């Protein structure tokens, strides 16, 4: 046998674990503030009217979505890649000093970019395209971070000792390629400083301002092809990558069916990209595209459920583990929420349902049962599983983890139930006519009626945030005060009381 290093090097994984937690707190905290601003508008000026510009709903909203997508989730993807990638390929990242350097470079550049994003969004520098709000200088920085990620990924793959790529690696590769393609095409823009006036002046106005390469309907089409698939390749594909590794590893059970995972992978890759059109039903894009978006959204249930069922069946005969381990609870509830939101999404994509659901809070509810229930739970579970192996200490507290699980589950349930009711109520009120054929409600009637649901949603979000803070505390204590471990646990992660 050739010379092998003694272990894996988790330096870069640890760095990204830190940003996952910090940016998770930031993103969720802003989310809770936003939720309460809708319920109690006076919170918009909570820091006084002088700072109202920076605390009001509309300025903070992109910061919330971007902090959660590009901060919390993408950090989680990086952290787990630098952990899972080494292990399933059986290479130590430190075997290549170049890759170690590029990994650290990627981290620091990422941190700088995040800081630039926070400052620019607070200042109102935005392109307005959802989840692609950044202006061109930041876009360029993001491209560099992403390329470094790709170089690291393919670098590790090139050094591998295991010839076949494990399922998770397929999904990580798809994440890399998918986001690269989508991000580049959606952010095609022309910096306005390139323009020259008739008088010969150049570099007029803000240097960072730009205009989109696409106009109107085309811009919408490209944006929602991106927007929908940013969800696909940020919130689904890499999270599936995580669960394919962490659930079998934590439970000690082999995947129920490797063949099914092959099918659902290629199925998901093929189908997902078509479904973007469902964001534009009844808009001015051609009918056939809308129908296509609708149909493919329904077809999408198949590959999504393929993965989810594969996960649940992996636990076949081992359900006592779900009762015994809060870590497994997170993952099993996560895949259940995945099944649930991949059924809910297609239902909302049916034209007649969409007529009521579009533009309402039901969509917000749908996003959050997926993101809180599936993405959030899975990333936290992954970090919990990694902590004992990375820090070589027992998880600090099992009971804390169990209480966190129930608090957050309650939070998610409050969140999506209130948003369903709010969305359907509002959708029905907008279209209600009285006996003479006049609109039954003025717009403001449909806003004031939502107050209780907005308040409940705020409470739900707050519970989830509290749970996340418990998670952060638990990981911190694991790092500093957990019982040191002699050797790496094979499966179930050891937990203190």
């Amino acid at each position, binding site marked *: 046998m050739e010379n092998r290093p003694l272990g894996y090097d988790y330096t870069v994984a640890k760095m990204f674990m830190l940003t996952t937690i910090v940016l998770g707190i930031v993103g969720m905290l802003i989310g809770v503030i936003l939720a309460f601003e809708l319920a109690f508008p006076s919170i918009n000026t909570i820091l006084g009217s002088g700072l109202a510009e920076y605390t009001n709903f509309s300025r903070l909203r992109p910061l919330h979505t971007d902090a959660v997508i590009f901060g919390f989730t993408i950090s989680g993807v990086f952290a787990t890649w630098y952990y899972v990638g080494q292990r399933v390929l*059986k290479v130590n990242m430190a075997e290549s000093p170049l890759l170690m350097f590029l990994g650290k470079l990627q981290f620091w550049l990422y941190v700088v970019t995040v800081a630039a994003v926070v400052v620019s969004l607070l200042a109102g520098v935005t392109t307005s395209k959802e989840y692609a709000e950044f202006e061109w200088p930041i876009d360029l920085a993001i491209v560099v971070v992403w390329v470094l990620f790709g170089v690291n990924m393919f670098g590790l793959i090139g050094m591998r000792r*295991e010839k076949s790529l494990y399922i998770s690696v397929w999904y990580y590769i798809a994440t890399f390629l998918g986001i690269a393609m989508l991000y580049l095409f959606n952010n095609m823009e022309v910096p306005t400083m390139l323009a020259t006036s008739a008088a010969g002046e150049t570099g007029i106005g803000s240097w960072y301002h730009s205009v989109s390469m696409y106009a109107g309907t085309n811009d919408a089409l490209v944006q929602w092809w991106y927007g929908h698939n940013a969800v696909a390749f940020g919130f689904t594909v890499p999270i599936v990558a995580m669960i394919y590794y962490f659930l079998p590893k934590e439970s000690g059970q082999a995947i129920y069916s*490797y*063949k099914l995972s092959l*099918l659902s992978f290629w199925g998901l890759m093929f189908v997902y990209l078509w479904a973007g059109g469902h964001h534009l039903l009844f808009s001015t894009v051609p009918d*056939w595209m809308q129908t296509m978006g609708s149909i493919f959204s329904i077809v999408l249930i198949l590959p999504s459920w393929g993965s989810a069922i594969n996960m649940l069946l992996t636990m076949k005969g081992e359900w006592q583990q779900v009762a015994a381990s809060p870590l497994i609870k997170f993952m099993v509830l996560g895949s259940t929420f995945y099944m649930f939101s991949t059924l809910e999404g297609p239902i909302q994509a049916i034209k007649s349902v969409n007529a009521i659901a579009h533009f309402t809070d039901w969509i917000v509810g749908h996003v959050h049962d997926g993101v809180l229930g599936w993405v959030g739970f899975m990333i936290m579970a992954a970090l919990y599983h990694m902590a004992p192996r990375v820090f070589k200490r027992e998880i600090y507290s099992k009971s804390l983890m169990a209480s966190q699980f129930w608090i957050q589950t309650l939070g998610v349930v409050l969140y999506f139930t209130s948003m369903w009711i709010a969305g359907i109520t509002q959708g029905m009120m907008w279209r209600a006519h009285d006996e003479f054929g006049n609109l039954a409600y003025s717009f403001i009637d449909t806003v004031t009626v939502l107050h209780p649901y907005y308040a409940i949603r705020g409470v739900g979000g707050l519970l989830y945030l509290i749970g996340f803070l418990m998670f952060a505390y638990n990981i911190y204590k694991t790092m500093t005060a957990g019982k040191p471990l002699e050797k790496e646990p094979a499966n179930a992660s050891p937990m203190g009381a």
Partner: protein
Amino acid sequence: MNIADLQAYGYFAITVFMTVSLYAYIYHLYKNKKDADGHDYEEYSNMALHDDIGDTPVNPISKDDKK
């Protein structure tokens, strides 16, 4: 024939092709059970379970297929 017609025919052809290939692939996977290297597909699950740096790879990279 305009672009929309072409799209429609192309669409139909591709749908039929994709459906046939999908089912053929499923049939192939479950009939053969093993891949070209003679490994049962289900063995690959062990890549996650036995992932210690000292564990033997399911399908080690040999010297001659370095690329």
